[in-house]
């Protein structure tokens, strides 16, 4: 069976400029989630003398990378790079959460010389399941784009 790509009249891909603008807007929630939230959390903890063992520099770089990858993914949605970028974003999020889970204990003193330690690695590992599942979605999209390029475009970008 030979595959015939859909007629371009059956879909309407937004212009590169429009996608770029929206991709930049996509950066905002990404940076809030992956950079600002961990940064503010850690600096607030540091104010109370609580150290988490995370490298702030790593968190900023890894968070920015994830946010930028997420934006690129949106920009590349009409093309074949969308699937691999989806896999990259999800795999990056899994690795990011695994890194956070590795040293996920907060300790502080109580009383004269007691200590209280809270370990939340289990919670982060649980949340790593979500991007783990999304990798599957990226793999399916990659296979779809390799075997039947453009077939999904009428559904992702229906004509206006």
């Amino acid at each position, binding site marked *: 069976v030979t595959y015939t790509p859909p007629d371009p009249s059956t879909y309407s891909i937004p212009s590169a400029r429009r996608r770029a603008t929206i991709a930049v807007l996509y950066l905002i929630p990404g940076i809030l989630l992956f950079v600002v939230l961990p940064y503010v959390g850690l600096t607030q903890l540091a104010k109370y003398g609580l150290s988490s063992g995370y490298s702030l520099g790593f968190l900023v770089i890894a968070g920015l990378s994830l946010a930028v990858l997420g934006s690129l993914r949106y920009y590349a949605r009409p093309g074949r790079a969308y699937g691999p970028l989806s896999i990259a974003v999800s795999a990056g999020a899994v690795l990011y959460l695994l890194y956070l889970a590795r040293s996920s204990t907060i300790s502080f003193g*109580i009383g004269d010389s007691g200590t209280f330690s809270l370990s939340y690695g289990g919670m982060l590992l649980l949340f790593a399941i979500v991007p783990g599942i999304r990798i599957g*979605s990226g793999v*399916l999209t990659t296979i779809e784009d390799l*075997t039947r390029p453009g077939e999904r475009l009428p559904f992702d970008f229906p004509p206006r």
Partner: protein
Amino acid sequence: VPKPPLYRASRYVSIAATVVSLILLLYVGATIYSASQIRPGESKGSNIGDRLTSAGLELTASINFSNPGFLPINDVHLASVVYAPGHGSLITVGASPHIRVEPGTTGVIPLTMLIPFGPGSPVIPLLTHDAELPTSVWANVSFGSVFSVTVQIPTNISWGAPFSHLNVSLSTTPDANGTLVPAAQLSFVNNASFALDGTLALTLHGSGGCTATLPDFVLNVPSKSGYSQSVTFSPPSSCATATWSTLDGSFTSPTWSSPLPTENLP
């Protein structure tokens, strides 16, 4: 136009991931809320007791762990370490079983520690000295697979020595014939939580390698009571003029036996 199968599958997987993330958010939120309701140590208080066994002194602390939340606490576990004064040698360690506390119930977590008696026991030097023993207690609590809390509390265990302030005063006393013979007056206070019911054998060590064995003391000393008894003894004739400087001995009872630490004589 029907959607392509791979495209549809990809969408379903993506939707499944979103549903899982919502379920996880609800689960984590519920776990945190449920955990915030926990009140360790409440509900009729907690009990600390001790019991004399053939293996040593068994200390038990029962800590009540009230879980008014709506999720079970998967694992509550206590552990403890007791050191000699000044964080010296390790006296004993203790642990509780891993207990699951169902929602709306109170779990009793028993922490057991055994302070061994007998030869080689690290507690022998403390048989004649009261002490505050530095102790660390850890409470480990796991909530679902979400997070765990470890609380470490340093404290002290007050150790009451069974032969506290052990002392032997040497003197001479006239016998039936009016001859002066050596005499020893033994005194101590039983500050332990248990009675002493057995036999105490003491040996004096002196100059020139001299030793003299005192007659056995048969003890029946209740807890928190003093004891004083005088005996006469007969050192070897070659040690008639020896200077007695140290004392050691052993206690034997049906329940427990132990050597005593070497004590200097006044």
